[in-house]
């Protein structure tokens, strides 16, 4: 049985040990990154960021295979109060897609608010949450809107106790408006653009595929949007992009359709796969897919025939686009034109007129088509 006094001494020792342990731990907050490989080496890039932070180096953390995993920048700036200044020393991290990843303080370092009061854990969490919010209204505030009263001597100092503008308060860590503001604008400023550019310079179809597996949807959206025209869309990437053409996520689907360029559409298998997607999609995506097929240097016969044989099922602008595609690719196959000619009989004058104009343009000598055109002209003459 432990005596009461001994029990309290043990508790005290545990408390001291814990606080000592916590004091030695680095304070760090991170989100999940796209690439989960082990970091192996770091490459430094000297960049003119055109901001107020002295450090002009961007560090790229890579895997053993040379794949970029993340980036970081050391942020050192002064926090001053009554001519006593304290250095803010923090590392900001970015994902390879430019998304905010996290921050890390050196050992024994801490962030402070007004009157140099240290951040509590909930304030670090709040800061991390704010920095992760790319659409934060903080981005719309100018520097001179942060405080209610103008700061007399030092700009950019949290330790001066002026009142934070009420409009700004909900978007910052209370008591640390300048720290929050400065860090947020650093995350989403020029450094982010540089991160993206560096990743883009290393972009390969394989890396694109890895990024498309990211748990974060914004990463997938970013990379789909950035696939350069000159990149070869290998089969695996093609299939992945097609998978993303899903009406459950219009935005990602739209960007995925857009990722295919004219040169990719020389592939008949791709055209056929897009056509398959066309029939599975809603109207909005169908429009995009049909417009994409129109970019093909040459339209596959199978695609042409398929569209023609289903043409009676289409209306309005989609029908119009299909006829435009046929016209652009000088489609003159009799089977196709005969199928189209059936629409001359439609009650809908808009449709029959479009079809008539298209068929006249083809100058087809097919007897069936010629007969249909003649009947249409007679019918129009009597109306």
């Amino acid at each position, binding site marked *: 049985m432990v005596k009461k006094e001994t029990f309290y001494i043990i508790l005290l020792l545990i408390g001291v040990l814990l606080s000592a342990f916590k004091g030695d731990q680095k304070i760090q907050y991170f989100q999940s990154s796209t690439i989960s490989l082990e970091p192996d080496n770091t490459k430094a890039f000297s960049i003119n960021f055109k901001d107020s932070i002295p450090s002009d180096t961007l560090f790229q953390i890579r895997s053993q295979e040379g794949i970029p995993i993340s980036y970081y920048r050391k942020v050192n700036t002064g926090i001053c109060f009554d001519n006593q200044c304290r250095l803010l020393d923090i590392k900001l991290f970015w994902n390879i897609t430019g998304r905010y990843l996290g921050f890390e303080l050196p050992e024994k370092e801490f962030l402070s608010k007004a009157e140099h009061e240290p951040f509590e854990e909930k304030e670090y969490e709040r800061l991390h949450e704010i920095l992760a919010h790319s*659409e934060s*209204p903080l981005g*719309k505030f*100018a*520097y*001179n*809107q942060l405080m209610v*009263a*103008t700061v007399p001597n030092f700009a950019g100092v949290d330790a001066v106790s002026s009142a934070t503008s009420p409009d700004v308060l909900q978007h910052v860590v209370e008591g640390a408006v300048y720290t929050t503001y400065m860090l947020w604008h650093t995350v989403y400023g020029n450094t982010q653009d540089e991160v993206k550019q560096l990743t883009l310079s290393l972009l390969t179809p394989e890396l694109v595929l890895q990024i498309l597996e990211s748990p974060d*949807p*914004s990463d997938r*959206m970013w990379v789909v*949007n950035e696939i350069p025209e000159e990149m070869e869309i290998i089969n695996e990437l093609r299939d992945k992009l097609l998978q993303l053409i899903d*009406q*459950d*996520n*219009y*935005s*990602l689907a*739209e960007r995925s359709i857009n990722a295919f360029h004219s040169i990719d559409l020389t592939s008949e298998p791709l055209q056929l796969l897009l056509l398959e997607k066309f029939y599975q999609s*809603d*109207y*909005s995506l169908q*429009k*995009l897919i049909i417009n994409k097929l129109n970019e093909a240097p040459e339209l596959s016969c199978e695609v042409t025939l398929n569209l023609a044989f289903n043409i009676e099922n289409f*209306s*309005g*602008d*989609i029908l*119009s686009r299909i006829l435009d595609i046929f016209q652009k690719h000088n489609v003159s196959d009799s089977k196709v034109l005969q199928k189209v000619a059936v629409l001359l009989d*439609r*009650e*809908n*004058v*808009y*449709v029959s*007129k479009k079809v008539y104009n298209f068929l006249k343009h083809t100058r087809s000598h097919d007897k069936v088509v010629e007969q249909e055109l003649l009947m249409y002209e007679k019918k129009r003459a009597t109306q």
Partner: protein
Amino acid sequence: MIKLERRAMLKTMGLASLGLMTPNILKGEEYSEQYKLHKKQIKTDILVIGGGTAGVIAAIQAGRAGRKVILIENGSQLGGTTTTGGVNFPGIYFAWGKQIIGGIGWELVQETVALNDGTLPDFSVPHGKQHWHHQVPVNKALYVMLAEEKCIDAGVNIRFYETPVQADFKNNNWIVKTMGKGTSTEIICNQLIDCTGNAYVASIAGFDLLREAEVQPGTLMFELGGYDFETLDLKMIQNRYQQALENGELDKAEFRGDIVGLLRSKGDNIQHIAGADSTTSETHTVANIKGRTSLLNYLRFLRTLPGCENTKVIDMQTETAIRETYRIDGLYKITHEDYITAKKFDDGIAYSYYPIDLHDEHGVVPHQLEEGTIPMIPLRALIPKKSRNFLVAGRSLSSDRLANSALRVQASCMAMGQAAGAAAVLASINKKTPLEIPIGDLTRMIEEYGGIVPRQ
């Protein structure tokens, strides 16, 4: 020879004396026909009045469905608030990650963005309180041209600079008289769609209208430049502004008492003109003059402020854009409660999605919808009581004021336009009034042309 010379001389003298009285004749000009009003009568299937956000879509829908369509617009271009009004960020087409308004309106918006090499917002990212992140900025000039091109392609007969002055229902047709520049036209149509935004034609036709004592303010859209906002002494500016208000130099309500907001936004959707009304020439003249006078007063004031001495007007719309005027007394009035609870209607013909967005003299505090809420618009809200062969589409639909503050926005107007156009087509083909069209037929047609209809 002398005779000839004499004759020639006399002729010349005659011509000369005539020339003295009418000098221009001698230069080869001719008197043209005396000005007279050109009168004509035209027959059509569907007449759409108002070439704004809803009217364009209604007309294209009707044209693509094969009907003869006339579109009357009293201004010089199509697009309404989206173009002439300068509120060129239509929305909202997506709700909770899914598209809920598509069809012809979305087609127009998407193509305008694409032709401008723009990028659509990422609709999969929730907008939170910042619903404007899901609105789609469009190039106004491109929108005007594409809207016009699509109308022409659909066979729509566009008539600019005309306004209706009379509308009578006889023998199952509407006879609408319009006046234009040098024209007086009688249009006989089977179906009539009022897309004026002010229920103007509904009023002319004798149907009841509703209007609150206070209506939402209008806004003249403009862009300021010539200063660096980040370097301005905002405290000093606010003090000087306060003095100007107290002296009566400026009207507080015109910029919501927010001089910093005006400077930061550079004029983007910040002005409030109380009582702005585009229903008649006279009321719209007043709204336009008020908008411009307000801007000029504020411009002069801004240029007295340190840091703002070179403030300039970079761009300005030609009209004050209007939010609210009149609404029809429809077969069903959508209430605020209906909207925020997404009440289901058997005759639902379109979705709508926007926060409750009532602007008043203090500004606007949008009330976002609860997660998963997608309001619905019933066909009956587009039909005035006691009417036949008549529909409205746009902000003058039948609704209470709060519901209207959300329903009036452009994406919803486009959806209503397509639904009204389709209803008019089916009614015209079947020789019925829109209310008699089976709702299943109507929703099938809307979907056939890419529109999205509520699922029951």
